[in-house]
């Protein structure tokens, strides 16, 4: 019995230390990111904004795909709807700009509620394909509904509100919004609701006999996930100043999923780290060769083969092992 208590204390100690280290690292990173506009050229700020957006979109998706085990192949829908809503509010309508920006993610939430209502009844490949089909549907709508969405040409020349018109301000705005959203997602993941999500991934039957309605729980998760991906889409429009049907296309969904797989599915910072890799590889390789997709695919395959838990997941695993051997 004595040994067990010591064991337990040691294990708790490892966890506590890891938690402290993670928190301090997160705060330092945030500070560093905050002062970057004084140090690096504008190009890098845009690149980082792109990372922030993909990081948020992928983390939002990972709540559903990782923690709940429902791999959506159609999260481009919520990204794109958030993006289009923002674009339309800022160009076509008389809605005050900030109000439009604020409402846009909720439009994505609404879409997630409707699509989720039908999708959460399915799991695995059926779920993946149904969500993908819905996203493709919106992609087609965006192309065909010309006078509202601009059709194939999208919506361009979107003017940001004055407060975030300069690149520095835009960067800070994205940084703060994404940081707050990620913080909210951490809180959700660690809450009883989040724990039940992981529980129902492991054993839906068990959870049903804990009186938890599976579909309802999954739907709420789907909506939260769609909302945060919608926030990312809204930011995407603000950064680019334009939106195209691409933002609803399957490649957008794939980008998020690839970020999750590269970074690690079951560790919170995983998708964000994956997003860094995806954006950097996209841009860096893109400048050297036109066959960037080939190199991208190769990197992806190598990571999946040799780091099946993703970059962060594998590091986390080996740290845990080392601590255990001490």
């Amino acid at each position, binding site marked *: 019995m004595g040994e*067990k208590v010591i064991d*337990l204390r040691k294990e708790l100690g490892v966890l506590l230390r890891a938690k402290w280290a993670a928190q301090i690292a997160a705060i330092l990173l945030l500070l560093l990111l905050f002062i970057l506009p004084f140090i690096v050229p504008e190009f890098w700020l845009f690149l980082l904004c792109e990372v922030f957006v993909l990081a948020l979109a992928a983390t939002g998706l990972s709540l559903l795909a990782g923690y709940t085990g429902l791999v959506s192949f159609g999260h481009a829908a919520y990204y794109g709807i958030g993006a289009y809503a923002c674009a339309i509010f800022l160009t076509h309508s008389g809605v005050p700009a900030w109000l439009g920006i604020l409402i846009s993610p909720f439009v994505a939430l609404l879409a997630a509620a409707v699509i989720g209502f039908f999708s959460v009844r399915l799991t695995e490949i059926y779920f993946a394909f149904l969500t993908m089909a819905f996203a493709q549907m919106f992609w087609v709508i965006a192309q065909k509904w010309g006078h509202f969405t601009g059709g194939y040409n999208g919506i361009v020349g979107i003017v940001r509100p004055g407060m975030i018109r300069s690149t520095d301000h835009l960067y800070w705005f994205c940084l703060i919004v994404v940081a707050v959203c990620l913080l909210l997602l951490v809180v*959700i993941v660690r809450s*009883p609701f989040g724990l039940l999500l*992981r529980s129902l991934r*492991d054993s839906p039957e068990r959870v049903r006999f*804990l*009186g*938890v*309605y599976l579909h309802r729980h999954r739907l709420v998760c789907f909506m939260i996930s769609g909302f945060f991906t919608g926030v990312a889409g809204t930011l995407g429009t603000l950064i680019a100043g334009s939106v195209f049907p691409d933002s609803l296309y399957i490649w957008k969904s794939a980008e998020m999923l690839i970020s999750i797989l590269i970074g690690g599915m079951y560790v919170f910072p995983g998708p964000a780290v994956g997003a860094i890799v995806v954006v950097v590889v996209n841009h860096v390789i893109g400048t050297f060769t036109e066959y960037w997709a080939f190199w991208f695919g190769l990197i992806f395959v190598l990571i999946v083969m040799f780091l099946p838990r993703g970059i962060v997941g594998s590091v986390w695993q080996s740290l845990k092992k080392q601590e255990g051997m001490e």
Partner: protein
Amino acid sequence: MATTVYLDVRELKKSFAGLMATNNVSMSIDRGEFVAVIGPNGAGKTTLFNLITQFIKPDHGAVIFNGEDLVGKAAEEMYRLGIGRTFQLTQIFRTLTVYQNLSASVFAAYGKVFNLYTPASRLLRDKVLELAGEVGLSGQVEKEAGSLSYGDQKRLEVAIALSNKPQLLFLDEPTGGLAPDECAQIMELVQRLSQERNMTTVFIEHDMTTVFGFAQRIIVLNFGAIIADGKPEEIRKNEQVQRLYLGESCR
């Protein structure tokens, strides 16, 4: 609290593609009884549990619990009504720690499943640890559930099923695949908890030593129908049961 919990199963029928899995089963169980359900493989024991707990819908019949018909209710409602169950294939949350397994079930018991902001690791801590202590898992709370020994996994599932202090508990092979000494430990645990809480317990079991060592009453199923129902001594003497089990062991 004076009401007698009374489970009354009436003419329950279920067929799968023409095969009668449950054929006109009627039985009643009194509050506090400790009942074993036995029968050869494919006799319909698990199906009977699934029908009573509304995991699958019966074709015909009624299941009256505490004066309420369960048929037509959602499986999710069983928990609220005070009915717990475990599964033949142990259903625990394998990738989570024992502590997380237990806290998920404690949150369910306290209606906290839609709490989106309190850190789960701090909420209702004493209740979670109390539950761990009750089934003897206090020393292993930080272990991943999937890495536990098979016996401890069974313990964990019993603890999860007990989280809201059910009045009626169904255990589907609580000792399946366990070594004899582990078997006895689990059954002693369940027996003690049933007595302490005056909980009605129905369990499916294959091992005859366990069945005759613990059950107050035994129900024997074959081809989806009850062929005997009585005290252990009566069942032991029952010719039909003898033939069924001897016949099996001779083959």
